[in-house]
């Protein structure tokens, strides 16, 4: 089992609750470059520590936002490719629909794979609704664009016979022949995020890693759909390495201290959707049938009910306490022992998870607290999880 340390590289100094938006419209006068520089350096140090502790590394990207200073997965991963030694380097992900030039994505990811000597994991995502208006890419048919860019990038990475041409619905190229070609053959592993059953099936058919973000006890349905389509397409069972699950994580040597850290980490949830109204649901981002329902409920806040581990329903669109987040499977929190138990319970519920993506830094959780969390996890939880997975799946599968 792999455990990836993730932070969005937040800039919490700019989170002023009197503002109606932390994204898109928040002027960058609120961003002090010296503060930002210090943050980049400390977050990089934390990822480097994760590398030393046997953890793997996950980055993502967002744009025009104080919630996430990583405006490019590629930039931060290219630094990590050089300063880390062993960790897998997961971008989850590169927002393919928002990017104008997939050829450049293929080139840059190949560079990262070669510099890191084959440690890149390529995650491709559709991207959040707030960002098509920033990228000025149409929010209509975004998934079509994702899949076309995906097909192109894999073709660019795997073609060894010199220049080829590509004339798709969204992207046109001539003389494609990327240098360098990737280190991993035929190409670095591909991850795709999904939150709907239909998307899970599409990922299964391609055999890529399916990752879900903060889906809690709705995860099993997606994973089962994946397994069903994987079996039908590939004629075998998918291993646990085909699944990734992202949750928040707060860990400390006492339960009280862990809950204190959780208060900071969970600010991710309360800040991530603070966005100026017009950018919350751009036209075409969601299917017309779903938007028709939004119209019908105009003005009313629509609850999104999800189950806890013991079947109680909670509205995840309302503010949630730390204990509720734990009950919902959205956060693993407590002492190393408690965190281990919670993860094992969730892993069993989901029917196998080979990749845990843990946001161990969120909000204004300090560098010292983050490093302490990483050490506790790396030294006291990770070895037990590896042993647990080896026993459950056999050494070969567990190490995958």
């Amino acid at each position, binding site marked *: 089992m792999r455990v990836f340390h993730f932070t969005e590289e937040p800039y919490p100094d700019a989170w002023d609750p009197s503002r109606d938006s932390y994204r898109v419209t928040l002027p960058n006068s609120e961003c002090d470059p010296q503060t930002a520089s210090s943050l980049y350096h400390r977050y990089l140090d934390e990822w480097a520590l994760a590398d030393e502790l046997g953890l793997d590394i996950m980055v993502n990207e967002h744009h025009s936002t104080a919630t996430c200073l990583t405006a490019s997965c590629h930039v931060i991963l290219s630094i990590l490719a050089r300063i880390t030694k062993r960790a897998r380097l997961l971008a989850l992900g590169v927002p393919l629909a928002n990017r104008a030039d997939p050829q450049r994505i293929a080139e840059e990811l190949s560079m990262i794979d070669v510099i890191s000597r084959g440690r890149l994991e390529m995650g491709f995502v559709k991207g959040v609704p707030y960002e098509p*208006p920033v990228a*000025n*890419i*149409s*929010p*209509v*048919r975004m998934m079509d664009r994702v899949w076309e860019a995906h097909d192109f990038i894999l073709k660019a990475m795997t073609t060894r016979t010199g220049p080829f041409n590509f004339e798709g*619905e969204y992207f046109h190229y001539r003389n494609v022949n990327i240098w360098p070609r990737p280190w991993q053959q035929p190409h670095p592993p591909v991850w795709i995020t999904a939150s709907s059953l239909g998307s899970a099936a599409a990922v299964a058919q391609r055999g890529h890693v399916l990752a879900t973000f903060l889906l809690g006890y709705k995860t099993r349905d997606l994973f089962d759909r994946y397994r069903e389509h994987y079996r039908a397409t590939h004629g075998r069972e998918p291993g646990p390495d085909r699944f990734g699950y992202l949750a928040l994580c707060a860990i400390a040597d006492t339960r009280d201290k862990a809950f204190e850290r959780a208060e900071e980490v969970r600010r991710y949830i309360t800040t991530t959707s603070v966005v*100026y*109204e*017009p*950018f919350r649901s*751009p*036209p*075409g981002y969601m299917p*017309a*049938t779903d*938007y*028709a*329902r939004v*119209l*019908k409920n*105009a003005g009313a806040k629509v609850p999104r009910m999800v189950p806890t581990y013991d079947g109680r329903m909670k509205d995840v669109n309302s503010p949630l306490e730390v204990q509720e987040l734990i009950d919902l499977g959205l956060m693993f929190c407590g002492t190393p022992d408690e965190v281990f138990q919670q993860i094992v319970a969730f892993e069993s519920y989901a029917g196998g998870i080979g990749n845990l993506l843990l946001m161990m830094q969120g909000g204004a959780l300090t560098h010292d607290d983050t490093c302490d969390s990483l050490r506790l996890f790396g030294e006291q939880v990770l070895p037990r999880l590896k042993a647990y997975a080896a026993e459950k799946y056999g050494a070969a599968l567990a190490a995958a």
Partner: protein
Amino acid sequence: MEMIAAASRRMLDVRGIEQELFEAGDGAPVLFLHPGRGLIGSWPFIEALAGKARVIAPSHPGFGKTSLPRWMNTVEDLAHHYLDLMDALDLRDLTVVGSSFGGWIAAALAIKPTSRITRLVLMDPVGVKFGGRDDRDIVDIWAQKRTDLAAMMFHDPAKAHIDHASLPEEELLALARNRESEAWFGWSPYMHDPKLIHRLHRIAAPTTVIWGASDGIVTPDYGRAYAAAIPGARFQIIAEAGHFPHIEQPETCARIVGDLIGQGR
């Protein structure tokens, strides 16, 4: 549903494109090209005009209850489609009326060689860019709060209100589809075709450009520039109207179109 019963609805196949069409009234044909929001709100105008003419009101492909053909992604595609529709219905001595996004389609249609169009009425059309690269000629409707948008679009913002809860599912779905398709055609370059300004001189049909005095989406000055770019076009301001004068002043707008037909102008 407002007035929709007064118009007969039918579905056509126009060279493989699914076409939803409403018709009302008798006499000289008028092709009404609806704004991006669809036909909602336009029925009083259509009804008023149906007393003077045969009004043909299509839903653009991808709007109303029609699917969007995969290959269509520009207003030029829609304009060519309407050339096909004019042929399919064998429309002659035709008055083309377009509002906002539909006005853009109407202008893109009227620049093409056709003997079918006798006159053109553009109501607060978009589709042209007059300013420089740092100027925003047309308000970004997808970057506004709902309440702000209502005030920009309507002289009387109360008229912007649509009681979504009372609409049947299929009408809600049509509204959602309209919003999506308008974005598909108008996202970038935003609500205009950089080429159109260089082609407006080709419009041969006598043209009237009418403009809501309170239009906060595209100003009356933009409208004056639009009219000036079309040979011989007349420009007329409609009082107490915003971006959709035919919605806020349906009788006045229907009378203007009816008079143009009656006077043979």
